[in-house]
């Protein structure tokens, strides 16, 4: 098994923590993991991305960065940045996107319309029909989304084998110190949401 995940969002959304939890879980499962965070402009409201690559073969050598069409899974925490990352998605890959838009000042002032999640789904349809939109995310988005992802992967295990809500919950318990109870509650809600999403 060799899978690549591309996570994208904006500074302050918890993209890096999300990626760290996935990588940590994979590592705990005895898988080989690499992680590349691009967060140079995070503090300034800029784009943040994480590239995670997971292999079951420890002898398999691979680079930390993804190339175009390299992502089996694309996770978006912000609509605009997700659509900007389309080229990274593999044809037929899995997309999980939160319905959250951060409209830049210049667009507000010029009264331009920001893409909606339905428009984004339409754009992604040229590459995949495995598109999961999270219409009503809960804060903190990263933990909620991790729950949603866990539930989806339980129903589509070939997308990323071995990932379960129960396992991810354990990783959260070991990794997050602050507001653990609250985070676990939101994570559980994410799992429930993910079960509905993958069932529908």
């Amino acid at each position, binding site marked *: 098994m060799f899978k690549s995940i591309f996570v994208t969002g*904006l500074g302050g959304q918890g993209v890096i923590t999300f990626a760290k939890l996935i990588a940590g879980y994979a590592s705990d499962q005895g898988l080989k993991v690499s*992680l590349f965070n691009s967060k140079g402009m995070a503090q300034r409201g800029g784009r943040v991305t994480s590239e995670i690559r997971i292999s079951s073969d420890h002898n398999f*050598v691979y680079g930390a960065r993804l190339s175009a069409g390299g992502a089996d899974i694309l996770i978006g925490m912000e609509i605009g940045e997700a659509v900007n990352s389309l080229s990274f998605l593999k044809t037929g890959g899995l997309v999980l996107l939160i319905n959250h838009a951060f409209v830049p000042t210049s667009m*507000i002032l010029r009264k331009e319309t920001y893409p909606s999640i339905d428009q984004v789904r339409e754009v992604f349809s040229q590459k995949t029909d495995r598109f999961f939109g999270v219409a009503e995310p809960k804060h903190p988005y990263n933990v909620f989304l991790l729950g949603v992802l866990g539930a989806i992967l339980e129903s589509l295990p070939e997308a990323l084998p071995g990932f379960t809500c129960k396992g991810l919950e354990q990783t959260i318990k070991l990794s997050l110190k602050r507001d653990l109870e609250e985070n676990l509650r939101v994570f559980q809600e994410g799992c429930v949401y993910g079960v509905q999403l993958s069932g529908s």
Partner: protein
Amino acid sequence: MKKMIIGNQAIAYGALAAGVHVVAGYPGTPSSEVLTELLNYAQNNPEAPYVEWSVNEKVAFEIAAGAAWTGKRALAAMKMSGANVAADSILSVAYSGTKGGLVLYIADDPGAEAGMPEQDTRVFALWAGLPVLETSSPEQAYYQCQFAFELSEATELPVILRSVTSVAHAQELIDADFAYQHIDREPLFKRDIFRFTKAGSAICLDQHHSLLARLEKAEKIISRRNINSMVNKENSLFAISAGSLKPYLIESLPPEEGIGVVYLESSYPLDQELIDRVLDQADRIVIFEELEPVVEMLIRSQAGRKGFNGTIIGKMDGVLPRVGRYSKKEIFKGLAALKQESVVEEEGSKEAITVKHPITFCAGCPHRGTYMALNRALKKTKLGKKETIVTGDIGCTILGMNPPFDSCWTEVSMGSSIGLAQGFVSAGVEKPVVATIGDSTFFHAGIPPLINAVQHRANLLLIILDNGWTSMTGFQVNPGTEEQFQNSNTRRVSLDRIVEAMGVDYLKVIHPLEMDEAVDVIKEGLLEKGVRVIISREECAIPRGRREPWQEIYEIDPGKCTFCKSCLRETGCPALSVKAMEDNQVMWIDPELCTGCGLCYTCCRFDAIHSKREVKDV
């Protein structure tokens, strides 16, 4: 012990394992975490090397060189632009050589993900005559750093350890002991003017001979130690990768692919013995390296000397690009050319919609206040924003070039805002010329140009935006950082007293969040003659906010907001967004982001913005 670490941390631990005694550097993405990690280690372990953030890269390199000349092991760390700053000393030290291991870590940035020119350190290494060891993964970087010290000591040459963003910031699980292996050495520096000065042609020519002899020795050691590896040794087709592309080439080659492969983990001097073995049997060779065709030039030159009749594919024949970061796409293209197959271009997807999130000052950033005040002063003096040249400098302050400020016209290099401004004045620009620079950038390279401006009676206004930290690269301490936040072995240096001592007669200090006063002072500064310096002082909101929660945030009264958007138009603050009400829209302040800087408050003509505490009082 196993730990998930990034390439830069691996280099830090490699240096600790090599027993490094002295470490100095200046922050610069993507190199900074080497020093951050070592400084952190030094502050938490009784036995540790001496580590410092120096005032600039030239000083950092000189500190490392001085220490290495006593026989101790030393490391200097910087980004590629920093090597330009240190170049004068690096070249000179190259000719003198070293005693103890002297490693110069330089991080390049193919793809310019951190901004700044896409320059290639290996070209600089050819110029300086210094060996370059490449990194290809965090784990390899850990061992390569240790070898760099060894090679430096064996050859008595400084050694460049080079990485790129894709390695420096890649993270993987590494199994090591992550501890300092102290080497006991007395500092011993013997006076030897033939080696450690440059006075006289005889000395310099002799040093040039020594440098070349040391480089030759480096090549022999690199060959003997099998730093570079070869797979499928008997072949007519060869793919050669340099440095960071190794794992991508492995990933791209199916196991059944029988072509010969060479992974170069040192790019200069070229491992001629190994390349000879390729040239002796190959018909076709493809060379993969990011940025400039350095290895390619060296291989082509060796091939020419040998009368190689085959084909060499790379950048110089136009097949592969010189611009940007390589991914599997470029590797597939090169491999197809090697096998004389047509390239199957991966089906590109059209991004039907694209969204740009321009970077801007953080919520609460004092620089926002300074550029707002400058713009208001330009309006009040009728000088006009579009007609008044404002030079920018490196660091967060350059974000003043973006909307809604549109203030800065130029960005060249550390400290360049002042010299450029004097250039515009010398050329006869009649309107006032303004230079803007951050505190750390001023300490780094702004002092000589300001002295120059004073000596030559230049008419310019310099605004030093002093937020007390080197923020753009991750809030490192600099000479001007408040005493209480200095490290245990450092102290504060007074920015104001330096400026005064240079002979600046017109020096004012403003607080950029006190808008009315700031505007008045800048207005006056714009109209005065001679060198005028205004220090705009307020601590960076990020370290400040991390210490204590913000007490007095602002909110918008939806009943009073007319949705004129003046607040957004002038501040561009990321805490401001649009909120839909039942029958209209209003502006809204995100309480999670607001720091209570109050700048939006100064923009509102409808009294709709209040500090929360004020509201409570009413």
